[in-house]
């Protein structure tokens, strides 16, 4: 049985308790941020921020204004590209849902970052031996029969944890019960071959942080990334240490100069 989370954006009030719950449970520090003209902060996922709420002001087809609060984190794909791309099996998809990571195996090649269709895995750029960081689905909590920290924290049950097939049925029932409140689509049911985190939305998903549906498709991504990994692995291993040292040096220099570490995704609108 595979665990999943249904995110019902019509219920989210954007309080960001999920964002803090993730940091608090995982002992991640707060980042230095600045207001750039939006409520959202930090601006992007990072080694210290594994989930965050995006704030989007969106007008729907009828001209009605929505302020949509969209949670972003690892989607825990059913067929994760990151797992297939990892040359040393540091990433692993568990039967019960979480895509988990073994830091002891990781060589820091960042293939997972490049493979992920959702641009989720991040790396601690400012550390000499950087590790990949992303949402763990709170696998430790799940193993103890607890909900993920973010799900438990949610005041409005906008996040629901359960069995994937039951959540899909629940999502479809919600759309049927209140068809004017939702777009008729369960994001993640089929995208990228299906994900463990799925969403219901009051507005078109293309208006939110998600990759455009046409570029994402419904086929599992690993078919593509596995090919990359097979070709890339032997030659890559030798150069990885030098590559990482270079990135570390460059990042340090950039930070000392006051610039931001490289962002792996476009600025939020």
């Amino acid at each position, binding site marked *: 049985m595979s665990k999943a989370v249904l995110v019902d954006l019509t219920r989210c009030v954007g309080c960001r308790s999920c964002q*803090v719950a993730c940091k608090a449970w995982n002992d991640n520090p707060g980042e230095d941020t600045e207001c750039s003209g939006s409520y959202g902060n930090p601006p992007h996922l990072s080694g210290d921020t594994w989930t965050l709420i995006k704030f989007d002001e969106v007008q729907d087809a009828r001209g009605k204004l929505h302020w949509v*609060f969209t949670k972003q984190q690892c989607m825990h794909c059913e067929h994760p590209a990151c797992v297939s791309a990892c040359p040393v099996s540091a990433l692993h998809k568990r039967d019960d849902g979480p895509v*988990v990571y073994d830091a002891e195996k990781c060589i820091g090649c960042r293939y997972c970052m490049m493979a992920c269709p959702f641009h989720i895995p991040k790396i601690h750029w400012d550390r000499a031996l950087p590790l990949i960081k992303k949402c763990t689905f709170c696998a430790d909590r799940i193993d103890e029969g607890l909900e993920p920290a973010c799900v438990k924290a949610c005041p409005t049950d906008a996040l629901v944890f359960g069995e994937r097939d039951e959540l899909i049925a629940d999502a479809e029932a919600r759309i049927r019960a209140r068809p004017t409140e939702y777009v008729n689509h369960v994001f993640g049911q089929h995208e990228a071959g299906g994900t463990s985190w799925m969403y219901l939305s009051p507005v078109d998903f293309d208006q939110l942080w998600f990759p455009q549906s046409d570029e994402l498709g419904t086929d599992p991504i690993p078919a593509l990334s596995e090919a990359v990994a097979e070709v890339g692995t032997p030659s890559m291993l030798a150069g990885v240490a030098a590559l990482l040292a270079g990135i570390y040096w460059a990042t340090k220099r950039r930070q000392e100069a006051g610039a931001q570490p490289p962002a792996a995704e476009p600025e939020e609108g």
Partner: protein
Amino acid sequence: MDLTRRDFLKLSGAGASLLLLPYGLPAGRLANRFPLHKPVGETPTTCCFCGVGCGAIVAAQGDRVVNVEGDPEHPVNQGSLCSKGMGLAQLNTVDGKVNPSRLQKVKYRAAGSSQWEEKSWDWAIDEIAKRLKDTRDGNWVSEDTDGHTVNRTEAIAALGSVFINSEEAYALTKLVRALGIVWNENESRICVTSTVTAGSESVGRGPMTNHWIDLRNSDCIMTIGSNAAETFPISFNWITDAVEQGATLISVDPRFTRTSAKADLHLPIRTGTDVALVGGMINYVLENELYHREYVAEYTNASFLIDPGFGFEDGLFTGYDAATGSYDRSTWQYQPDEQGLPMRDDTLQDPNCVFQLLKAHFSRYDPETVCSVTGAPMDTFLSACQAFGATGARGKAGAILCSSGSAQHTQGTQNARSYYILQLLLGNIGVAGGGVNGIAGASNGLGCTLQGRLFHVLPGDLPMPASGDESLEAYLDRVTAPPSQMENTISPWTSRPKYIVSLLKAWYGDAAAERNGFGWEFLPKLGGNYSFVNLFEAMDAGTIKGLLCWGMNPAVSGPNSGMVREALGKLDWAVVVDLCETETADLWKAPGTTPSDSQTEVFLLPAAASLEKEGSLMSSARWMQWRYQAVDPPGEAQSDLWIVDQLVRKLKSLYGADGGPNAQAITELAWDYGDPPDAHRVAQEMNGYDLTTGELLPGLAGLKEDGTTSCGNWLWCGSYTEAGNMMARRDNTDQSGIGLFSDWAWAFPCNRRIMYNRASVDLQGNPWNPDKPVISWDEQSESWAGDVPDGGSPPGKAYPFIMKPHGRALLFGAGLVDGPLPEHYEPWESPVRNPMTSVQSDPLLKTWGAVKGEPDNYPILATTSRLVEHMHGGGMTRNMPYSVEMMPDMFIEMSEELAEAEGVVSGDRVVVESPRGQIEAVAVVTKRLRPFSIDGQVVHEISMPWHWGYAGLSPGDSANCLTARVADSNTMIPEYRAFLVRITKGGAR
């Protein structure tokens, strides 16, 4: 299938046993299985931020907090928390160490010095006690100029708090009053006093009539002056459920907020026009006969006849005296019959009956006028009227949620009065899913304030003795109403002698006896209005020389903060008790201040956070909940109770040795809480004892006026009995079926969960809504089933509003000084002329010589607001890295139209100016604000949070540098929410 978190918790069996898993279990790491890397939590606490009162569980390892999460057994939050609450651990622990912002030693800043010095507690308590004694004794007033004994000092002020435990606030009040201090105020003065006063006038009490869980019982919820999704996010646990079941959510707000984002209807109105809007809804309800006829006729004063001399013309009620700027209210009274009782017309047709006067008054609030004044779109306004008006049907319920957004206006009291009138017409008070829920913003706003943390009251909201109350008898004559002669009414306040005598026995023990009026001389007597703004005027004038500032940050929260900071700088000494260094403690570092010019001595005392001590607090929904200590305070920080205890001990020894004016008020003060002081013993004193048997009183009925009972706070009587600490109860089963959870904690009053619940039934005792009965009369057992009723007499034998003289709620009332009915006036600063009458703003509003901005120079209307990520003056959250990370900077929100006109884009820095000062902020340009069209004129409105100041991890300019010292005439609550500014792009930073 609709899976929810609650179901999951049930299904998975993740009850207490799993949640309390200690660190390291299960041992060993299986393949791809992960042991919990830290414990989840074991010590129950109540969140210290807002007034929802969420339960949390705390895990500690050694001296550090390693986890805090929502308490899954708590009926209100059911395991969830908002972002502030989820960051609660950071008050104690950041990145595994003590939060570096926390004070761990006593700090002292000498007059003129530019640095703090670390000091010992012994030194600080000695020095502070000396200053208290010197300042008090040197500025003692035994008799006032009228020759009345007043036993007070006007040279010391006490401020705060709304965050300390109720027991601590009670102990602080004892200390303050024993010292003869009359300048005694906390944040509730400037936060919600107007809503509370409107409640007292309309229905008898001021707090939320209903409670958080009850919101799910509603058919229509209107938030007005409250952005509840932002400021009380857990309320949306229940509002969202109601909406999914078909309820309509109406969000009235100048901005499209987090609340509006979830609403069916966002009804934008220009700030300061609530009376116009709700007056329009009242008119709609009356015109379309949507009101609850039976409820209105029986349970309100609709049928009472008013003096035929009463009238209203061009913005003024009868009796206005322009020379004094006040009303003679003699024509606002009932027509008496030969027995002196109000005359009535049960047909509601008499032109002088309240119902007809109400109709006539609000007939002017037609939809065209309302939309022209408020700027609301007509179609949305009418939809809102229809949806909310539909709750006037028998069995339907509509709830109003309001908070400081409507309270902080020169019309603050009348704003809330209009909500009560609407709700009374619709029969929505007393029923499940109804009510006027005036939300107290802070975690213990109610609990602290009801301990007498306002100048005009003693614990239990008993009126403070005043000059002329020469004896206890004279005082009781003044404050005790004569029994009503009207049939089937219970007279309020006839029991006050029992309450005050029992209070004096709790405070002065054997020294309070019949022969000395139970120690009447010990209490100070008021000689005027000592409210918040007056207090800072007196400080500025040099009358007040010393300040005790307890967990409050007026340098950020006071109106016209620049003037507050100046006044603070004129003190001889200030004691600031807080978790971190606040702007108020840093008064000598305020922008523009040279430390060497600042001659104020500052004692900065390190206080324990909520997780580091034990005691109770009262949620906005009136639940008293006990919380436990999870860790020790860091360094030398101590609980507020310990600090008060130390000061009292030292003062007792000083006055015992050296004497002083009215020294017995201090030496005889009953003070026996153990060493260190035990919060349980304070709580027991508040509950009260039968002094004959020595047993804790079981409830109010046991109180006596002969000195044989003690009770520190009659509202707490029944909260801690021989049966145990009722506030600590954790039975989360709901017997009621409507979510009362009556065995969880304890509620004021008398564990009643929905106030005025006798109005939820008809005169025969049958619930208006049999599906959601709050109470119902059981003929067989001849008793009430359900919630604790407002008085136990049988149906028809008592009218429901037992705190009002005739048992009826007031649609029309003579108790407010500025009008028996609400009337629209413009805010003190407004971009438009009052479109309704020639009276521009409330004729009784108070100004203290404030300089008024005119629209020619300051064309933009501004309001202030709060964020979920920060709390009030920011003293806590601006020292919590998670909150600072999410909301790092002071900003203003402005419409795309205004931004274009000013050449500003999102992220630019802007300067905002009012006649009081100027601030810099980041511009957030948004579709969520739109220009208003008012009477044909375009009005731009901006909004800004008020959390920032010059201290903490995230310094920024304070919105209140722009707000003015003008206030509502009934309560002196300042008009924070409407003022004029101008904006320019740029700024120095």
